[in-house]
């Protein structure tokens, strides 16, 4: 492998590979910032451009756009409560609260550092363990996907806010919204009321933009008109006076970033799971195991680090089954799969041996360098980015609305998506009035299809093997995941018992 890596490194001396890396990093950050547009749109856009490029330069550019697109979405999530894609929604919880307190610059820095650490760990997993992890990934089936989705649902319990019943209701409503459309197994229409445009179901991104951006816009309008807030930050004078990076942050965040990166890379390499589920699970796990869970949702830098490290690590993880087995687990990796084939790189063991190995390792190294470059740009521009929170709400509000509308339309060139976004904007605002959290609803929508379709596929697969229970006991990975879920569920109980013992 060392030989291939040294050959791969030498390819970065070529100007087209370096330019590809730069275009991918900067382009990804820009495209991630626009609500609705994510790395999938950016990479799809690069496909025709990359046709005349060398395979290394083209794939380095695209994978760089993948990781920086995820990062870019988190910047607006932190500064304007407008996550670019579902992967950044978990970061909104604490990032925006920090911005409101005038710590936007620090929040952007934490997002950047955590994204870089997560991205680098994801890239290391990709470089060192891709073939081995690829074989493990092959051992996952519907039952394991279903259990991972169950893990995601369990995370909801940690995101419910003050009223648990309201939080769980929101998550169940999200799952119900995810049921809208044609059932993927039997083809039966559910809750479509004869509307053809509902047959495909509702995409999570317009719902996310509505619930987070439009509802926040309405809150900003109300504050502005009643004279209680002309800018996002409570005290504009102190907004840029804070430090970019507090002294103890490294010590405080390192364990969380490492733990979340490993979780992210692991969840990422499970096809169908993806970056957003990795971010939520990592955030939930971090909150549940924290000594100060009450700080989460109120501007906790550990919470930001947990979700950000996980979603960027998941990008590296998601490329493992793609390169080793040719299994694209998400829309982004599906486009990357097309790009690999277009450049004559057939996923499989051939990519890791022989003449194509230097190209493969150059792509992986490009992914690693993209994360480092993203970190340098992100940290050096944190101050400039944090200035967004000083823009008067009277200017910011119309821009967010107009950008959300065109960004949502650009998702599938469909005005129905814009209607859905606006309807969920109103629903999100009503939810805030009546004390419901929007995050569990989004998570429910994201998980619905994975949960249901995989459970029903499991039932079909288990039938000839004597039913669900014998089938479950024949799958060791499923048993391990279930044990992890039980462990996760038991953490608060154990913490209670321990604290009671300590008090005694």
């Amino acid at each position: 492998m060392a030989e291939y890596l040294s050959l791969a490194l030498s390819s970065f001396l070529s100007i087209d590979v370096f330019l590809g890396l730069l275009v991918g990093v900067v382009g990804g950050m820009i495209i991630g910032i626009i609500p609705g547009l994510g790395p999938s749109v950016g990479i799809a856009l690069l496909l025709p451009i990359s046709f005349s490029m060398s395979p290394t330069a083209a794939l380095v550019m695209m994978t760089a756009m993948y990781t920086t697109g995820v990062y870019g979405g988190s910047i607006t999530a932190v500064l304007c409560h407008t996550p670019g894609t579902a992967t950044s929604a978990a970061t909104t919880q604490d990032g925006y609260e920090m911005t409101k307190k005038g710590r936007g610059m620090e929040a952007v820095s934490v997002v950047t550092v955590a994204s870089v650490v997560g991205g680098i760990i994801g890239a290391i997993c990709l470089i060192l363990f891709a073939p081995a992890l690829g074989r493990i990934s092959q051992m996952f089936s519907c039952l394991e996907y279903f259990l991972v989705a169950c893990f995601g649902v369990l995370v909801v319990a940690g995101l419910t806010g003050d009223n648990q019943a309201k939080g769980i209701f929101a998550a169940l409503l999200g799952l119900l919204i995810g049921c809208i459309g044609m059932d993927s197994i039997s083809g039966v229409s559910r809750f479509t009321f004869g509307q053809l445009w509902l047959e495909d179901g509702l995409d999570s991104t317009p719902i996310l933009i509505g619930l987070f951006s439009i509802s926040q816009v309405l809150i900003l309008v109300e504050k502005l008109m009643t004279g209680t807030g002309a800018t996002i930050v409570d005290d504009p004078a102190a907004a840029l006076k804070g430090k970019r990076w507090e002294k103890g942050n490294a010590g405080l965040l390192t364990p969380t970033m490492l733990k979340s990166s490993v979780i992210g890379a692991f969840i990422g390499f499970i096809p169908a799971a993806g970056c957003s589920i990795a971010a939520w699970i990592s955030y939930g796990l971090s909150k549940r195991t924290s000594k100060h869970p009450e700080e989460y949702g109120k501007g906790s830098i550990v919470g930001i680090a947990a979700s950000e490290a996980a979603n960027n690590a998941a990008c590296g993880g998601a490329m493992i089954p793609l390169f080793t087995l040719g299994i694209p687990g998400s829309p982004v990796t599906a486009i990357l799969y097309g790009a690999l084939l277009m450049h004559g790189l057939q996923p499989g063991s051939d990519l890791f041996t022989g003449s194509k190995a230097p190209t493969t390792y150059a792509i992986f190294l490009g992914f690693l360098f993209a994360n480092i470059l993203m970190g340098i740009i992100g940290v050096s521009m944190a101050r400039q980015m944090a200035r967004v929170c000083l823009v008067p709400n009277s200017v910011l509000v119309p821009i967010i609305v107009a950008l959300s509308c065109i960004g949502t339309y650009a998702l599938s060139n469909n005005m129905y998506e814009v209607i859905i976004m606006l309807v969920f904007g109103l629903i999100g605002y009503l939810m805030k009035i009546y004390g419901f959290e929007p995050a569990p609803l989004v998570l429910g929508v994201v998980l619905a299809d994975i949960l249901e379709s995989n459970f029903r596929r499991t039932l079909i697969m288990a039938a000839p093997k004597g039913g669900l229970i014998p089938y479950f006991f024949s799958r060791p990975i499923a048993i391990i995941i279930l044990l992890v879920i039980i462990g996760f569920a038991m953490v608060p109980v154990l913490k209670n018992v321990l604290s009671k013992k300590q008090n005694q």
Partner: protein
Amino acid sequence: MAKKFHRDVWVGTVLLIFCIAVFFTAVQIPGQASYLPITLSLLMGLCSVFIILKGLRLTKEQDGDFHYSMTIKSSKYAFLFMFFIFIYFLGFRYITYWIATPIFMLLSMKYLKLKSWKVNIVITVLYTLICYVVFVIILHLPIYKVGILGQLFRYI
């Protein structure tokens, strides 16, 4: 005099009615496809009952002296702005984004107390131009298909 209930009682009741409606719609779905919606409607119904019960407990504890951080009554500006957004959407849908957006931005910035017309116009023009370059020239978004005047802004 009618007893004043905490608003969670009403919210829970409305949600319970919604869950009943979902349940009766879900039972009409044929085959296995109905399992999850039925289960979800039942669980949501259960959550609604818990919301009502918590509302009743809060009614008893707070004895009619309820303090809500946000209410419908105190959100008139937000709802009015939502109405503006809806009008903007209609402009986007039936005229074109490139005409509806500048009008929406100019008027909404003025409504949101931006004093300088100069700044208002500069921001509107800059936003529209940047958006046109990004979405139409670079991304080739077929937004010209939306609205009767969309074709006027088609980039060849």
